[in-house]
């Protein structure tokens, strides 16, 4: 049975007020019918039914504040009886009823007669399935989460149809319980709200194909990136930086530093510049939190490191106040250990700003996805030789494109543009980064 | 022989005599004292002063000529105790002192006299009317008052309050809140002293109410038993202030001779006039020495009277008449001693004023100290639950979420209560002062 939820109608909206029910329980509704009046901090509007059916239950009361995403009613579709699983529970309970004690017997009776109501009272599913109401033991829920299983596909053999550990282990062995969007296929209209993980089609099973199981890290990345790209209103700002002076300085420095075993990379300069420039643009060095924008004084600079199994972003703490050589040493060490899998959680958590460098791959430019809850990320592209006009003359220069991706909820375009101009200025006057 | 007995004094003597005569009637008349009394002739001891013939008039003969300077010192101590207790009552009314409050007013001569017989290494254990015992053993009035005020500087760090004063270093093994509950402990303390081969004794104070508890009878039995082997140097001091809370001795036991109760357990015993400091001292020094030497327990019933209410919540005192209180007040131990010292010229009125002034000043200082001290740090909630290096904190350790919740809640509550109290305090304080004036 599809839920009617409190919709999110603005970036900052966390809850809405149910002003008034426009339909009563038991009313037939068609798709698009206004069923309730909703008020946010900005507007009052009518909430439309996304499904046709009978308004089965009004959960929320008029005047009540409801968090975004929470069910306020259920719509019972045509021909939809009480949800299948409840029926099952009923059956097995009946079978066992005779053996069980009186107290439980009463509970069963209640279940049988008030099934729709009870079902509605149960917690809304948190794992994205439209119909996730089932009985499962805690370890089962844990296993399901860890292994990305869809519990609705597993038949429970415990009391009242409870899914227990052995059921899950058996299903995992058979390999037929992966959460794969089957649910959506079965009930296409059953997911009115944007699902956190978009439903994917079933595998084609065509010859020459194989199913590659996603490593856990990749699954997490997939989830987070989806979330970031869907939820964060990105805007982009690209600058072209002349790198001649910086490259000359770098060469000079590296010659002098060779004895000490230090070799500064272009990226070290970029990271330093990005970090230093943030001083004037605190909005970009911030986190999007439940309480609001958390501005950070210190720049804990995350650097994206590609791994075989995915991607990780180790953090250089207080990068703005670190010397180039310290940044260089830290980034080399972190990257090395990241590839070896030797990072501690505190070494890759808690970044406030990210730099992602693809310069080694010859890309001309690219825009990165923001690493939530951070406000911004800078994509570093390759240095290209270009001929440009200077004082009416064509001169060869080394150019590098930097692209800022920023969260428009936190910063606006002008701010991003000014910040990138500052980064450009620093990189084009690299001595400022050295002294 | 004293020349003068004022009428009130005689009235009180009649009360005492009446109590004894009741006690002697009935069962007691058929009972012989377990311990043959020493000294059949005219006795110099307080024991006979209050003996069966009730010949109180021998008292003045019997009173030992205690060193006058000492008496002045002890007078000073009693005045200090009185002032302390009055300050406590004020503090209670002002809402500065919580819980129960039991003052020693009227009974000062008992502990003052017995603690004269205290020697280093001895132990004192008593019930909840314990302020005087601490002060007499030398505990700092500041710390005692701070304890009552619930401060971290209190003598037990604000963890016990009025009923649980401890000063182990000075010999005070505690005040205890359950009537009779501390008596077994005292007997155990005494056993340990002998087991450790010292000549120390335990002064075990109990009230008339405690005599009716099982703990008393079991402990007295043990003490008598262990005393046979010289293993129980325990001096029982029954502070018979006539009332267990609001119920008179006559209404709690058919055999009201409390000293005689000890006969059942083979413990020598006597009575002493607990309002007469000199009589108490004489008795205390004599019997303490005997206990010390013999390792056998001894019991003294000190007849006294609590002129203050039982506790701070004892408003109406329906169980006794104003006249009765007034009669006993005439025999107030401080008043009696003061009169005597004035008569024999040891002090004059100026000196009396000076002593009272000093006491007041000292107690004001204690109150100020208590008032200005900090509440115990919230971490103290979890200390002193267990002894030992591996102090086990239980599930509620401060590190646990529960523990933090407790601590936070406590802090919030404390804040809230101080906020609430502020305005009320002044009003109460004012009232209290007015009352004081009326009383005077």
């Amino acid at each position, binding site marked *: 049975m599809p839920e009617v939820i409190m919709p999110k109608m603005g970036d900052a909206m966390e809850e809405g007020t149910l002003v008034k029910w426009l339909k009563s329980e038991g009313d037939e509704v068609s798709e698009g019918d206004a069923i309730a009046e909703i008020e946010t901090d900005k507007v009052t509007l009518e909430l439309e039914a996304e499904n046709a059916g009978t308004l089965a239950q009004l959960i929320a009361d008029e005047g009540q504040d409801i968090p975004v995403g929470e069910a306020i009613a259920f719509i019972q579709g045509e021909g939809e009886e009480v949800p299948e699983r409840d029926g099952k529970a009923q059956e097995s309970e009946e079978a066992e009823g005779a053996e069980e004690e009186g107290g439980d017997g009463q509970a069963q009776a209640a279940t049988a007669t008030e099934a729709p109501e009870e079902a509605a009272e149960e917690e809304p599913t948190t794992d994205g399935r439209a119909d996730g109401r089932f009985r499962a033991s805690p*370890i089962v829920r844990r296993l399901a989460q860890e292994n990305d299983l869809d519990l609705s596909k597993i038949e429970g053999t415990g009391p009242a149809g409870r899914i227990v550990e052995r059921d899950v282990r058996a299903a995992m062995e058979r390999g037929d319980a992966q959460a794969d969007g089957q649910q959506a296929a079965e009930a296409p209209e059953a997911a009115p709200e944007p699902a956190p993980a978009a439903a994917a089609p079933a595998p084609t099973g065509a010859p020459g194909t194989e199913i590659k199981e996603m490593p856990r890290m990749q699954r997490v990345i997939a989830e987070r990136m989806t979330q970031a790209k869907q939820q964060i209103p990105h805007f982009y700002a690209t600058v072209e930086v002349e790198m001649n002076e910086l490259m000359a300085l770098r060469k000079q420095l590296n010659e002098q530093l060779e004895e000490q075993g230090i070799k500064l990379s272009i990226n070290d300069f970029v990271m330093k510049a990005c970090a230093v420039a943030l001083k004037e643009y605190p909005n970009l060095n911030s986190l999007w939190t439940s309480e609001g924008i958390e501005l950070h004084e210190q720049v804990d600079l995350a650097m994206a490191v590609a791994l075989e199994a995915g991607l990780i972003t180790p953090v250089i703490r207080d990068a703005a106040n670190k010397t180039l050589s310290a940044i260089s040493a830290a980034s080399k060490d972190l990257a090395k250990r990241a590839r070896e899998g030797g990072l501690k959680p505190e070494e890759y958590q808690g970044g406030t700003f990210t730099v992602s460098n693809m310069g080694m791959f010859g890309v001309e430019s690219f825009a990165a996805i923001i690493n939530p809850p951070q406000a911004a990320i800078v994509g570093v592209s390759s240095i290209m030789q270009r001929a440009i006009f200077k004082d009416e003359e064509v001169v060869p220069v080394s150019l590098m494109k930097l692209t800022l991706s920023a969260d428009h909820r936190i910063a606006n375009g002008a701010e991003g543009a000014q910040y990138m101009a500052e980064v450009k200025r620093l990189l084009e006057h690299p001595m400022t980064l050295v002294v | 022989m004293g020349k003068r007995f004022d009428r009130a004094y005689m009235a009180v003597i009649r009360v005492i005599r009446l109590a004894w005569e009741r006690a002697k009637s009935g069962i007691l008349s058929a009972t012989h004292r377990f311990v043959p009394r020493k000294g059949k002739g005219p006795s110099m001891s307080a024991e006979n002063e209050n003996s069966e013939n009730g010949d109180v008039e021998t008292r003045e003969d019997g009173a030992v000529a205690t060193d006058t300077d000492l008496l002045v010192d002890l007078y000073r101590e009693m005045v200090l105790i009185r002032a302390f207790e009055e300050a406590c009552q004020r503090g209670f009314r002002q809402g500065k002192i919580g819980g129960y409050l039991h003052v020693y007013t009227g009974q000062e001569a008992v502990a003052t006299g017995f603690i004269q017989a205290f020697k280093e290494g001895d132990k004192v254990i008593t019930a909840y009317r314990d302020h005087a015992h601490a002060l007499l053993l030398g505990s700092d009035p500041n710390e005692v008052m701070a304890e009552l005020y619930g401060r971290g500087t209190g003598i037990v760090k604000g963890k016990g309050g009025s009923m649980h004063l401890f000063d182990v270093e000075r010999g005070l093994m505690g005040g205890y809140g359950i009537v009779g509950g501390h008596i*077994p402990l005292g*007997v155990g303390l005494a056993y340990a002293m002998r087991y450790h081969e010292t000549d120390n004794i335990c002064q075990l104070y109990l009230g008339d109410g405690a005599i009716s508890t099982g703990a008393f009878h079991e402990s007295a039995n043990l003490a008598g038993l262990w005393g046979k082997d010289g*293993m129980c140097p325990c001096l029982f001091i029954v502070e018979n202030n006539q009332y267990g809370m609001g119920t008179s001795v006559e209404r709690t036991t058919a055999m009201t001779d409390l000293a005689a109760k000890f006969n059942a357990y083979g413990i020598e015993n006597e009575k002493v006039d607990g309002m007469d400091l000199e009589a108490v001292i004489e008795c205390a020094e004599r019997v303490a020495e005997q206990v010390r030497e013999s390792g056998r327990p001894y019991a003294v019933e000190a007849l006294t009277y609590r002129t203050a209410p039982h506790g701070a919540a004892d408003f109406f005192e329906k169980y006794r008449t104003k006249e009765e209180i007034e009669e006993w007040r005439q025999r107030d131990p401080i008043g009696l001693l003061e009169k005597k010292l004035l008569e024999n010229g040891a002090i004059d009125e100026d000196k009396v004023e000076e002593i009272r002034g000093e006491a007041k000043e000292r107690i004001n200082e204690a109150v100020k100290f208590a008032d200005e001290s900090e509440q115990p740090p919230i971490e103290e909630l979890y200390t002193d639950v267990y002894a030992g290096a591996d102090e086990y904190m239980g599930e509620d350790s401060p590190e646990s979420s529960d523990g933090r919740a407790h601590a936070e809640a406590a802090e919030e509550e404390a804040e809230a209560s101080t906020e609430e109290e502020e305005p009320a305090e002044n009003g109460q304080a004012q009232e209290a002062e007015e009352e004081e004036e009326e009383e005077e």
Partner: protein
Amino acid sequence: MAETKTYREALREAMVMEMDRDENVVLMGEDIGVYGGTHLITDGLIDQYGLKRVIDTPISELGFTGAAAGMAMMGMRPIVEMMTWNFSFLATDQIIQNAAKVRYFSGGQVKVPMVIRGPNGGGVQLSAQHTHSMENLYGHYPGLKVVAPVTPNDVKGLMLTAVRDDNCVIFLEAGALYGTKGEVEEGDNAIPFGKARIAREGSDVTLVAYGRQVNLCLRAADTLAEEEGVDAEVIDLRSIRPFDEDTIVESVEKTHRAVAVQEQWRWFGVASEVAAIIQDRAFDYLDAPVERVSGAEVPAPYARNLELAAFPSEQQVANAARRVLYMEEK
């Protein structure tokens, strides 16, 4: 080195070791001296240590328990025998109001290093007034420590620790097991409080118990292995306060199912505490609700068949295990 000894011998050995080591250790109790002790734990010790150290007391639990607390406050280390723990109700004022709390309300000025020991629990047809399990009663009070050893080795090791502890230790012996034998380590095998013992390792279900019920659980585990192929882990708590949460939690994280067994009544019992701890700390590992197996909610009866029915049985434990394993009961 280990030697086979009875529970009684091991217990006595620990007390003798401590009496030899520390003069402050004395024994007190009813009929422990001349009579030799109702359970013969202290037989002959009065001749060995004399009247001052082996003290026959009158029948006055409140009096002598309180006196022992007083001795402890003076630095002695009395070991008080409750002829049976049922008599300790008479002494609860001294145990709870004084021994457990005096350190706290004295602001840490005194300590009460004493042990109160004796047979606990039922099983020998002593009926209503002489059959109680005291773990939950005494385990409730901060200031007390409570242990309940079941093996001869543990009774010795825990007694050594109890005597050396600076607090009042409630030492609950498995009275029905004084004659049982087991390997006992030679010498000083002091066992720390707050450490449970894995009495049997297993992977499928955790049975948690203490005292006599540990043996019951071990038998049930054998049955489960034979009949169901189930590999049960049995945890002997040994110490009720302090309580070893970690061992239980670690086991349940492995097995995902738990049964807590106690001889005492169900309500407000140790098993309830076990269940609460598991749901608190191992919730996400559970595959079934935690089961409790407890005594029947009646005063202990006399007749043998009724008494047996009033205590947890091997079958009840095995069936509880089957329930949490979603198997059919037998």
